[in-house]
């Protein structure tokens, strides 16, 4: 097991820059998730760590060793691919033992390692099958088994769950996390799914357009997003944003309504700002004061009710765990604990 250090790494394809200088320290035994919309460069970064893409500038270190020019096969890393990349003409056993056979490891040793990994992954009874005889989840596990037998320094996961159906994805998510807790191998996991990131990561790296927007634990990102992008990306349903002008003690919206907020030390009066509040932090104000919102759509999920409403012409979503009986067109008054309110500069998008 090993740390991974990324220092000022850039990637260019011809004139097109894909990564604009990435700095990231992945600690030994850590499970780090790279998350971001498609095209943000997260997969490219992962493939650069793997040695499948060259580095245009900067350094990548595995442990203390700069691996920029070390070929993929000598980096001692294992990777799980999105489409599993199982060898279709080999049995599960042959797939899992491929790397060990290449190393000319003793047969008994290979057998022990493969059976151990199969045991961990519940694949013991499938060892003689060919990949096409397996379900998606089982294939996924074989792909992990292939990584497991190698005792690699680092595990890399490239959107490993995106080919599975929603239900299986949740199961495998838990399995991968449990596996990491057991093996403690440094892992870098790429996904575009923020829920996967939130549930699995020790730390999340939010990427956008070739840059890192924020690095932090899931709760840090949730509680104190560094900018509008992270605030919007993390959490489901997304955070509500209300644009307005900053005044002492409040954000004034376009229609003149005042959203009370703690403003000391946060920007100057007259500044254009974005007020942010998560749907789940909104509650009905008991005394009829608070932010007035006009209900448009009500979606009960059983566990909660999601209400889509409009405030000063801007959309807003609120989630209630209590069962309210709202009607479209009705005006409701919303309140929230002050500590859950977020404030961002409208021009830069940075947190205030």
């Amino acid at each position, binding site marked *: 097991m090993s740390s991974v250090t990324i220092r000022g790494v850039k990637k260019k394809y011809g004139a097109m820059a894909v990564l604009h200088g990435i700095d990231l320290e992945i600690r030994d035994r850590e499970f780090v998730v790279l998350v971001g919309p498609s095209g943000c460069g997260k997969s490219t970064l992962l493939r650069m760590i793997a040695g499948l893409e060259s580095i245009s500038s900067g350094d990548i270190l595995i442990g203390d060793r700069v691996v920029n020019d070390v070929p993929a096969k000598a980096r001692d890393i294992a990777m799980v691919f999105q489409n599993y*990349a199982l*060898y279709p003409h080999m049995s599960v056993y042959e797939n899992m033992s491929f790397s060990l056979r290449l190393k000319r490891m003793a047969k008994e040793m290979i057998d022990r390692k493969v059976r151990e990994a199969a045991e961990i992954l519940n694949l013991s009874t499938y060892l003689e099958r060919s990949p096409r005889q397996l379900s998606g989840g089982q294939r996924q596990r074989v792909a992990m088994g292939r990584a497991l037998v190698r005792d690699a320094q680092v595990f890399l996961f490239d959107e490993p769950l995106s080919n599975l159906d929603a239900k299986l994805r949740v199961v495998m998510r838990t399995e991968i996390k449990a596996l990491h807790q057991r093996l403690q191998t440094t892992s870098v996991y790429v996904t575009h799914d923020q829920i996967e990131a939130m549930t699995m990561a020790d730390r999340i790296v939010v990427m956008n357009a070739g840059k890192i927007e924020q690095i932090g634990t899931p709760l840090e990102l949730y509680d104190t997003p560094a900018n509008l992008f992270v605030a919007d990306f993390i959490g489901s349903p997304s955070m509500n944003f209300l644009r307005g002008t900053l005044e002492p003690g409040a954000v004034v919206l376009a229609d003149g309504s005042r959203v009370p907020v703690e403003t000391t030390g946060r920007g100057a009066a007259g500044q254009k700002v974005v007020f942010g509040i998560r749907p789940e932090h909104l509650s009905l104000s008991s005394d009829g004061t608070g932010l007035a919102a006009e209900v448009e759509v009500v979606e009960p999920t059983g566990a909660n009710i999601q209400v889509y409403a409009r405030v000063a012409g801007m959309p807003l979503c609120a989630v209630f765990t209590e069962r309210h009986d709202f009607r479209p067109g009705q005006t409701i008054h919303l309140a929230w604990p002050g500590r859950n309110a977020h404030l961002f500069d409208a021009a830069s998008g940075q947190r205030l």
Partner: protein
Amino acid sequence: MIRSRRATLLSYAVLIIAGFASIFPILWIIGISLKTQTDAFAMPPKLIFTPIWDHYAKVWADATFIKGFLNSLFAALLGNLMAFAIGIPAAFALNQRRVPGRATILAWLLLSYMLPEFLFVIPIYGVFQATGLYDSIFGLALVYQTFTLPFTIWMMRAFFADVPFALYEAARLEGAKSWQILLRVYLPMAAPGIAATVILNTIRIWNELAIALGLTFDKAQTVTLAVAGYRGYASIDWGALSAAAITSIFPMLIFAVLAQRQIVGGLSLGAVK
């Protein structure tokens, strides 16, 4: 419903006519090979006759024909071996992600595949005379290798392109060297394609006449030349010629029937990409 039934009938009719048209000459030759010379040229044609095996007995006892048959077999084997020894690594290299001028190379291969065979003969005749390769099976196989190579590379490249690139990357990460990836991942996965290409190459070599005519004299004569050999100066031994022709079709026929699934599977495999 009725329309589709009529369409089915029509397509069957077309198929039967086309099938008959293509198989008729072969049936006719089989007929000649089993008839006496008199029966063979009787007018109107004798459809009911007592088959005789004399022509086959004659052909199978003919040392020249047997030698030609074996020569063709060796030339096909050797030509294929050499074409694949070069074609597989070449196709693998061409299938890498970044190959400068790949499109041009592939276009050239296709172009050279389309060149008439006889083009090889004229310059190579001189070279072979000078090097002693003239009238040798090895020399012939060398030329056959040259003229099946573009097709071999082209086909293998297409089959390799069907192997997901992630497998290449996965094998690389697992510590495999290029030749190990080729041998243990690409070749097994492209096996149906290799079989199809071997079959098509072999059929092409087996039926080849122009090159063999130009570059052999008697030692390395191929089966096609041996068949043509029954055409004498003054007369044509139609019975033996037909028996020889049918005999020479046989290996390819068996080959094609046995490997039909591979050919169809292999060709459609290549067709997807």
